[in-house]
């Protein structure tokens, strides 16, 4: 398809705007600082561009176009009211430095979200400032670092992560200057307490772990793990990427965690937008609250002297935590994502538990349909469980080794073949502890009919002619893309010639 740089109309023929408010505009800037040649951007009209971007969108797969069982990413439906609300001038046309009196409604939403997220995770304080899960991890580890420093324990220089952890965990801790201690999982894929006991010592600053794990199974010994880390003086950090599995059923506070991040773009329906924006608030127990980034939404009872408020009897204001680490994003986080997540949470309220129930129901059902519904003739190519367990939580892993051994068809080939059937591929080769891994997370917003059809299609791929699968996809806008060539030739922009 053509490039946007193919549009090259007459100079100034495109989208129009008013003239500057004075004739000598720009004369205040010395010639010696001015640029001589303008950037070679396209010269296009609105009709041309509307068609260009519409055609591009048609070459892109989203939840709206089909089932998206991408494990660890919680690709649930994004309600459209979210988009309607964030177009309102009361959010789109707000500046983060406006005085509190002008943003009472926004502060009220921030306060409600902080409160709700605290309740759901069993934490005492929440900041909405981090704008992605990885930034939430970084922020929480920074708070833990300040906590240790202020206790005179800056010698604690190690962070423990299981080998099944998301890559962002070790990357975030390393950005804070920590040495990473990776502990191996047990043979069943679960946390190995022996390995943990051997890893903790007086240098342990924190342990970072997600539960359910990246295998989609609940870590039954999590409370004991927390005791081991706490006894050594370390802090427990909960990676909230898999929070969709447990809302209302348990929470990180009960499991013994001190800090947690949330992914509003996973659990609370902020759209993923092709890679972002996200929002990664963090919650902490009271002993870490004074280190949170600034500011946090706070409130008190409204008095007669206050100007008009949000209409609920409170006066809201921004507050700086006592020993705040400062800023991790330059303003107050991705407010638009916070407002979308607020609209989503309001839809469930106290019934958020139903959301997790259905996410887990769908994951177990799909696993059952794939793993149990096959006749004996196909067993040779059937995947194995990534981790043995009676039930899974919101996601599960498949080990595709039997198929590879029998036919040479890899997990990646199956993933690519699924694209031909109109599905997004599952997460591939993660967690790395499962060989030939596919990780599937159907989310709560897929119907039984979709899951049934997907399971049937998935199983039929296993018995297809291996050559067809190895050369998949066949029906997508482009065929398999040469990633090695991309990295070798490094054509990272249009030549604009």
């Amino acid at each position, binding site marked *: 398809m053509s490039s946007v740089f193919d549009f090259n109309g007459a100079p100034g023929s495109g989208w129009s705007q008013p003239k500057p408010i004075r004739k000598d505009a720009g004369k205040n800037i010395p010639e010696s600082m001015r640029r001589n040649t303008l950037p070679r951007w396209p010269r296009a009209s609105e009709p041309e561009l509307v068609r260009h971007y519409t055609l591009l969108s048609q070459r*892109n797969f989203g939840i709206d*176009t089909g089932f998206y069982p991408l494990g660890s990413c919680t690709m649930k439906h994004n309600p459209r009211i979210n988009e309607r609300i964030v177009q309102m001038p009361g959010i789109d046309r707000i500046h983060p430095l406006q005085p509190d009196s002008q943003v009472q409604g926004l502060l009220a939403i921030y306060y409600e979200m902080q409160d709700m997220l605290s309740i759901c995770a069993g934490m005492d304080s929440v900041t909405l400032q981090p704008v992605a899960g990885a930034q939430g991890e970084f922020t929480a580890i920074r708070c833990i670092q300040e906590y240790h420093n202020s206790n005179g324990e800056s010698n604690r220089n190690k962070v423990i992560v299981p080998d099944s952890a998301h890559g962002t965990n070790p*990357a975030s801790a390393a950005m804070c200057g920590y040495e990473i201690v990776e502990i191996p999982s047990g043979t069943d894929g679960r946390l190995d307490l022996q390995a943990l006991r051997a890893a903790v010592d007086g240098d342990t600053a924190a342990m970072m772990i997600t539960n359910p794990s990246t295998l989609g199974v609940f870590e039954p010994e999590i409370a004991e793990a927390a005791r081991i880390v706490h006894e050594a003086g370390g802090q427990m950090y909960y990676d909230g990427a898999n929070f969709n599995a447990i809302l209302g059923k348990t929470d990180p506070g009960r499991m013994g965690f001190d800090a947690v991040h949330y992914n509003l773009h996973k659990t609370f329906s902020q759209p993923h937008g092709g890679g972002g924006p996200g929002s990664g608030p963090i919650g902490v127990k009271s002993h870490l609250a004074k280190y949170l980034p600034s500011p946090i939404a706070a409130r008190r009872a409204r008095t007669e002297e206050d100007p008009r408020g949000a209409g609920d009897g409170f006066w809201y204001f921004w507050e700086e935590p006592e020993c705040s680490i400062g800023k991790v994003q330059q303003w107050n986080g991705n407010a638009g994502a916070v407002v979308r997540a607020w609209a989503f949470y309001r839809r469930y309220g106290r019934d958020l538990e139903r959301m997790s129930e259905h996410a887990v129901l769908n994951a177990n059902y799909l696993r059952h349909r794939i793993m149990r519904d096959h006749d004996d003739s196909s067993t040779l190519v059937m995947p194995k469980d990534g981790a043995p367990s009676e039930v899974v939580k919101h996601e599960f892993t498949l080990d595709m080794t039997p198929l590879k051994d029998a036919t040479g068809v890899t997990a990646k080939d199956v993933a690519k073949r699924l694209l031909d059937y109109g599905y997004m591929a599952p997460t591939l080769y993660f967690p790395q502890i499962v060989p030939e891994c596919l990780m599937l997370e159907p989310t709560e917003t897929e119907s039984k009919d979709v899951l049934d059809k997907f399971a049937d299609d998935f199983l039929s791929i296993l018995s297809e002619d291996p050559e067809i699968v190895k050369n998949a996809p066949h029906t997508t806008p482009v065929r398999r893309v040469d990633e090695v060539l991309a990295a070798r030739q490094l054509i990272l922009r249009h030549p604009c010639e």
Partner: protein
Amino acid sequence: MDQLPNLGRELEMLSEMGMSSIDELFADIPEDVRRNDSLPLPPPQSEEQILADAQRLLGANIHLDSRPSFISAGLARNFVPTMVPMLATRGEFLTSYTPYQPEVSQGMLQAMWEFQTMVSELVALPVANVSMYDASTAAAEAITCAVRVRSKRSSQPNTVYVSEFVPPHRMSVIKNYTQGVEIDIKILPHRVDGTLDLDAAKAANDSCAVYVEQPNAFGSMDEGLMSLRSIIGEKTALIVGVDVVSLGLMEAPGNWGADIVVGEGQPFGIGPTAGGPIYGIFACTKDYLRLMPGRIVGQSLDADGKIAYTLTLSTREQHIRRHRATSNICSNETLIALMGAMHMSLLGPEGLERLALRVTAATQTALESVVSIGGVELIHPELPVFREFAVRLPCSSRETLDLMDSKGVMGGFDLSRWWGSMGDCLLIGCDERTTKEDIESLTSALALSISEVRS
């Protein structure tokens, strides 16, 4: 609750699995960590009720378009073309994930490759990524990137020099991102006239990097920055933070020696949105490519030899390199960058120039009008400005702003919130939509408020 297609079909699905209750699915959660009561939250609402509450709450905010507004401080009260949100929220874009499967993600990949090109052209550097979280994290990660590339061969390892006229919130982000990896941040002073002290800048010679902004926190532009390259030496990374719109008029930093250019992309693509989601731009020379943060799209071929796009250089990233990654960034601001690309395409080269002229015309007109008020002085009268300018009042800026607010004018930003010693200073910001009438309202409200504060 209307988001669950299988509501009412639970038993049917459970029984296929040989179960009879949802509770069996959660039997693996040990009793001692299980929650047995309901979440103490309000009851569920319908879409209608949520919309009504949103209208009530967000309607209680006073938005920038409801009155003359002169608050900017790094964000723009811009005009976003109608096409932009309408097309960017097409479900195929909006509800997609990071394009790990290029065969079904060519739309976003191509759009991001085109975005990289537009940013590259704007700043005159060969490489750009598909966005950082904002201008501040872009600046912070530019610094850590420069240290990774330069530290081993520098006579001042782990040392970076930063202009003292970088806004404090950005300095705070920079400090958070650099403290753990033990980067020493030294401050580059400015002279009384506001220009960077080029003599003092000699100290940065053969350090890892220098970070300056054009325009700076006060909206001032400093021609001296364009000679920094010769002062700091060839081996020191020159990182420049820009106002992206200003580059419709100003020489691109890539043409005066910058190695990395960062900035707030927000003026292209999205409203100020209470501070986010916005996006940071990040562009650099090829020397920094393999150690830069963020996602990068490259052109390739598919199995049939057709041109195709894919994410590339992923071995820098956390999902592969884990704790040795160049950054922890994973989710970024792709959708907002897409909106930026749409806006930039609509503007075109001449539209960008006109946009910059509109902003500078409004800024200059407001400046001339405001300094005509007795007792109001520019803090750096010698320097040209873009989008913003800082003035010293004959009285408290906070009290003056409160009074202007009561007259229906958002008069600017009280600089004492950034620097305690600037309690009588005001940062006044303009944009392409600032009208002559707005400026008249600003000037009369400011003059009247000053006399009220002083009386």
